[in-house]
């Protein structure tokens, strides 16, 4: 009953649970578990421009493969990571995800989730209103992230450091 198997059909509820779980892992700093949610070719994309369609030939805030995400996570743990002394903390508040695509036969699912993302360090705290789109695949009975696209509502504003991950 506790594991999702390849034979058991996936429910919309399971997709929504997955999105909440992913945010919880980030908030609790459980980064190694978080990395295990991704497909090997999974990409985390945070566009710079409103409704940006091109990830390659214009600048994005983030467009990272598993190597870069792993580097990002390893850096957060580093002894000489000066911008993380002291460490930042983050907090996600999620609206209930919309299930936009639900194709159990192809094992392909898409959710869209509006969130408030709060990050803090020392005396500073900031809030970002973001929309996260998860493109998920069912592989060996497990949901995995193929693409997480995070659009910041005020993406064209000037920001200070955003050190953790919305």
């Amino acid at each position, binding site marked *: 009953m506790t594991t999702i198997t390849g034979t058991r059909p996936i429910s919309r509820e399971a997709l929504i649970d997955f999105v909440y779980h992913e945010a919880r892992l980030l908030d609790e700093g459980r980064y190694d578990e978080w990395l295990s949610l991704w497909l090997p070719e999974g990409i985390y994309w*945070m566009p*710079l*421009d409103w409704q940006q369609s*091109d990830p*390659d*030939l*214009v*600048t*994005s*805030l*983030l*467009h990272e*493969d598993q*190597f*870069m995400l*792993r*580097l*990002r996570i*390893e*850096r957060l743990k*580093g002894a*000489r*990571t*000066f*911008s*993380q002394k002291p460490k930042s903390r983050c907090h996600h508040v999620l609206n209930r995800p919309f299930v936009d695509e639900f194709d159990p036969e192809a094992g392909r699912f898409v959710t869209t989730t509006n969130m408030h993302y709060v990050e803090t360090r020392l005396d500073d705290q900031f809030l970002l209103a973001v929309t996260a789109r998860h493109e998920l695949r069912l592989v060996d009975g497990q949901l995995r992230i193929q693409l997480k696209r995070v659009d910041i509502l005020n993406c*064209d*504003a*000037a*920001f*200070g*450091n*955003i*050190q953790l991950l919305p």
Partner: protein
Amino acid sequence: MTYTLDNVTKLVQPHQVHRDIYTSPEVFRLEMKHLFRNTWLFVGHDSQVPKPGDYFTTQLADQPVLMVRHSDGEVHVLYNRCPHKGTKIVIDRSGNTGKFFRCPYHAWSFKTDGCLLAIPLKKGYENTGFEKTEAARGLAPVGAVHNYRGFVFARLAEEGIGFEEYFGESLSSFDNMIDRSPEGRLEVAGPPLRYMHRCNWKMLVENQTDTCHPMVAHESSAGTAVKIYEAMGNPEPKPMAMEIIAPFMSPYEFFEHMGVRTWPNGHGHTGVHHSIHSNYSEVPGYWEMMVKAHGEEKAKRILSENRHNTVYFPNLMIKGPIQLLRNFIPLAADRTLVESWIYRLVGAPDLLLKRTAMYNRLINAPTSIVGHDDLEMYERAQEGLQADGLEWVNLQRLFSPEEDLSAVAVENGTSERQMRNQFAAWVKFMKPAPAAASARAAE
């Protein structure tokens, strides 16, 4: 301490500067009023305004301006301020205004070269002497504008040093960046990263030729990248991201040997002999395109020049080999907005632009694991400089008392000569602007 033009230059000594130069709001105000009026500042690239009526809004130091393409094709730089009540004429970052600007407050309208076109109920100004006022002249132009191969610069002061004299041989870095296009032309690629720094603008500019910090401040990102990659067995070909980030961990000798060159008026660059951009993989088809456009000898000369960071005093940096430009816009003594722009080499393979876009987000974004540590250092310095126990900031690495900053020189790449060069220019241009011709005529 109260600062005026008479005493402010005492903050600069040949080998050190007083901390107030970074922290004092009065010094900042003097910089806005004098230094940033007398020097040539970057406005934008003319591909941001390709068609007549296209405009782009920005600020030169604390001055709101707009860059607009007039009907004759010329690019004008005008103060973004209605001559009537002061309302900004346009506030979106870019757009097209058609044949004229129309103020949204009282509908005064202006041609795209700034001239006053019409005022509603104009007869209300008859016999008032209005035609003799500065308002009747329309949107005020900045002091001088120069379009250098697409890059638009402006001097706010009406009179002062000319563009060619001010930049001189330093324009060779722009030439190299632009010549890397087989068509000799760049085009802006998308909006800039906008990164807010709670520190003085000069800290950012100094850091551009600071070659003793990468292996220290960026050990957390570049060093970790090298370690992870080693654990993977250093597989080839190296991913593009590794090619970009690994050279930040190069040893001191690499940076010593890369060399630094300084030019008069505060300009200079690191990476005279080689740089962190020297060993990127070849892009298929590009060499052939360059040979076809320039001939083999010239193509080789262009592509073997891999300058690291070129600083254009006071507040601009470009990376020629990857077509990247950073504009350090001063907002307050302790606040600087950094805009990082990228450009397409017209006629070259997309893969080059893909690498440039990747470099920009990996290194210059508010989400960058490299940028995070730089900003941490600047903000710690801005706070640390409040300490009264020490009042001077040391700039003495490879200094000699005989140093002549008016001469072009190439030195050891870890020298702080370029930082001293910037402060020499700071002193030189921290003066009242020469009287304007129009003001002299009125006297």
